């Protein structure tokens, strides 16, 4: 006979904002809850009520439930309870906490994606304040940061987080698993306003197409209102060689990232600070992404205590053509955002170029000149991109043209 005891979640002296549920189904005796909690006197009753409600939702009337709570928020308690129930009674039913209305928003295709913060999908304590640190995107990760035997409970937790946690306008991204697990992930999370799916270890266009089709099918059947964008992550030599094929495989791809830990492992070399070993891969990805009209995104910088190193890394990354980077700690966000943003000097120069271009166009002139210098069209295009970026970052105010004068001829 299979074990009739299920365990979900985490407890222990270092665990915060999580809980562990140990569930045993019984023949009789009703629901008996044994709760240990630091917030017992303030939330004991509501924790018990929530657990009871979920058990009854799944038709369980007799069970003993041990809840070891370390200050878990309701969406976490609900996820852990549901996960425990489903270990014993597999079911397609989902116990969905309320959808916080402010969490329903679309994003635009070309939004800035300088910094996106990775959040391990089975660690609720890191999710709660994740949206406060200014990253353009948050990634709820179901892939490498979740242990294989915790994939099911993480999926439920991530789903609940998408419904309940306010990410304060950040682009809501999920990194799904590969293969069949990934399909399960999509089914569970897509209905909860995911803006972008990260496709890990992407090697060819076929993988993207499969996921794209899966997303279209789910979106159609559930009549989902918002578009779901894609960001493939290239993490091995095959992927690098197929970079352009991947980049052009779907119109829903908005950015393409590189994962250097796996890539260097695939080459059988060490990842170094200088990064000579990955120079080809990085520039290849950048070129392919740009050719396809996508944002090229750099790999994470893994030494979270080395802010100077990160700064240098971002500076080089930007000079190569990358337009963003993953973060594994909130303190990296500021450095990364500052590093990819245009500096004042660039903005000033770009303002002049764009103004000269506008003036030439108004006068019907065929050539643009700044002072006595001719300006080529690509220079104008780059300046316009810098201005657009400065506007979207709030570094320039709309109507800036009126307050800027061209130098005397």
């Amino acid at each position, binding site marked *: 006979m299979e074990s009739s005891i299920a365990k979900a979640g985490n407890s222990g002296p270092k665990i915060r904002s999580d809980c562990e549920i140990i569930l045993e189904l019984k023949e009789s005796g009703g629901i008996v809850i044994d709760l240990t909690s630091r*917030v017992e006197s303030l939330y004991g009753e509501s924790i018990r009520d929530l657990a009871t409600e979920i058990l009854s939702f799944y038709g369980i009337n007799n069970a003993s439930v041990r809840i070891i709570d*370390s200050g878990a928020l309701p969406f976490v308690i609900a996820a852990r309870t549901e996960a425990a129930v489903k270990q014993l009674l597999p079911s397609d039913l989902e116990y969905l906490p309320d959808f916080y209305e402010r969490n329903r928003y679309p994003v635009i295709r070309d939004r800035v994606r300088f910094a996106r913060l990775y959040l391990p999908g089975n660690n609720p304590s890191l999710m709660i*304040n994740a949206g406060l640190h200014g990253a353009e995107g948050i990634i709820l990760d179901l892939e490498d940061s979740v242990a294989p035997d915790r994939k099911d409970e993480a999926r439920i937790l991530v789903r609940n987080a998408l419904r309940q946690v306010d990410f304060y306008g950040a682009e809501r991204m999920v990194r799904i698993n590969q293969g069949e697990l990934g399909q399960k992930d999509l089914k569970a999370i897509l209905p909860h306003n995911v803006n972008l799916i990260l496709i890990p270890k992407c090697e060819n266009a076929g993988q993207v197409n499969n996921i794209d089709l899966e997303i279209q099918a789910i979106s159609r059947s559930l009549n989902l209102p918002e578009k779901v964008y894609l960001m493939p992550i290239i993490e091995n030599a095959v992927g690098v060689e197929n970079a352009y094929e991947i980049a052009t495989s779907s119109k829903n791809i908005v950015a393409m990232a590189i994962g250097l830990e796996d890539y260097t492992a695939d080459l059988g070399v060490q990842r170094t600070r200088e990064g000579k070993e990955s120079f080809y891969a990085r520039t290849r990805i950048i070129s392919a992404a740009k050719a396809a009209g996508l944002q090229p995104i750099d790999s994470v910088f893994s030494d979270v205590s080395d802010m100077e190193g990160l700064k240098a890394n971002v500076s080089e990354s930007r000079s190569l053509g990358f337009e963003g980077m993953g973060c594994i700690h909130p303190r990296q966000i500021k450095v990364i955002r500052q590093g990819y943003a245009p500096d004042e000097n660039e903005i000033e120069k770009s303002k002049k170029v764009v103004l000269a271009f506008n003036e030439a166009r108004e006068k019907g002139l065929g050539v643009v000149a700044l002072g006595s210098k001719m300006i080529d069209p690509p220079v104008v295009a780059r300046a316009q991109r810098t201005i657009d970026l400065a506007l979207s970052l709030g570094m320039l105010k709309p109507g800036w043209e009126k307050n800027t004068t061209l130098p005397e001829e």
Partner: protein
Amino acid sequence: MTAKSVVNAAGREVPLILNGQPVVSFKGVGKHRPGGNKYGPPVPVSYDYPEDGNKVVGSLEEALRKCGLSDGMTISTHHHLRDGDLVSNKVFELASAMGVKDLVWFPSASFPCNDEIITYLDDGTINRIEGSMNGPLGRYVSEGKMKGTAVLRSHGGRVQAIQDGEVKIDIAVLAAPSADAFGNAKGTGGPSSCGVLGYARADYMYASRVIVVTDNIVDFPCFPMEIEGNYVDYVVVVDKIGIPEKIVSGTTRITKSPDRLLIAELTTAFLDKSGILKDGITMQAGAGGTSLAIAVFVHEMLKERKWKARLGFGGSTRYMVQMLEEGQMDYILDAQAFDLDAVASAEKNRNHIPYPVFNAYNYHSKGNLTSMMDIMILGATEVDVNFNGNVVTHSDGYLLHGIGGWQNCLHARNVILPLPLFRDRIPVIVDEVTTLCGPGELIDVIITERGIAINPRRKDLLERVKDSGLPLKTIEELKEEAERICGKPSRPVFTDDIVAAVKWVDGTVIDVIRRLK
């Protein structure tokens, strides 16, 4: 059993009799004006003391006997040895062995090392504590196990209570890192150096009897003296007055939590954009990780602009010392040193000046240092939608902290509380504080990771930051956000029994703590 009670000016029901003595209920900030003269201790005669100035006696027990230790007396100690204190507990161990009962312990603060005091509360040696009760001691009080009713006072309120004669100290037992045989003593030198002895002044000046306990006896004069030998009855030399590594933390450190750092950044941005931060400011910040981060960020900003703080009021830390040493602060006025760098600085730097709370915080002083401070960074366990603050109980109703200087510091020009919106699911901003320690009219700004709430009374600050881009919210909005995330907490259920009274800085009763059901 409830004593006769009244609803005070803050709307809290408080007793009129406390531990058998009549008490005044809170009337409003600055309203209570007792007349008459300050209390004075008995008049000594210098002929009664050894001509050679040697007041050393054989043991603490002998000193206590000579002081006439007997039932019902009030014994005071200071907390400069913090969690490394070996003297306070010893006094009551001796009293217990001597069979003395119903003492009142009047410490300037207590620490986890004082949990042992529970033994002497249990065996009847101590009737009650008038001072701070942390952790297990607080829990003991909340559960109604203490015989008398606890009285919580601020550091300044403690001096006020002594000067008003509300607390008459029979014997002050004052641990001193260095002392001479005449009783002059200071906080530096010897194996148990704690930097300064800022909290001992009222005790030695007003106690009927004063015992100095040291493990570092030096030749007369022990200079510069923070305790003056002319007030001291006996000197006791022991092997050890404290455990050095527990007296000061080796080093205080700024928080590593990204969420706390975010609060510190927001606080610094607020200080800047509101114009509060300027050249020549006066400031005080605590030793908590977030406060220290704010000190570091403020330091960077001062440096960048070539500004200077005129003075920082301690508790001093290495971060304040860095400001002093790198030229961004003219003076540290210090009541206590929190880490080894601060102790070292107090010993060697002329501009790091001991400054007793006796002067800085006292209601009966002719002016206070705190009201002259531009920036005051404080904490709280709870703040309510009327900006009232609580520092002594948690939302579950347990007494877990002392007031410290918190109430006194509320009189600064800009009182800023950087706080997380919730801690482990427990909202910090609530409808009504569990225990009222400070009236909302004195609390100016609450800074959380999810937004800044300015007290509507501070129209000037609201005006100055309205276009700053800072995340301004009303306190109600912050409260609602906390409740949306955490759920609305149940309120603790209390009995009618009063286990502790919270005094305002003027000695009136602002609130009480009741026994938990």
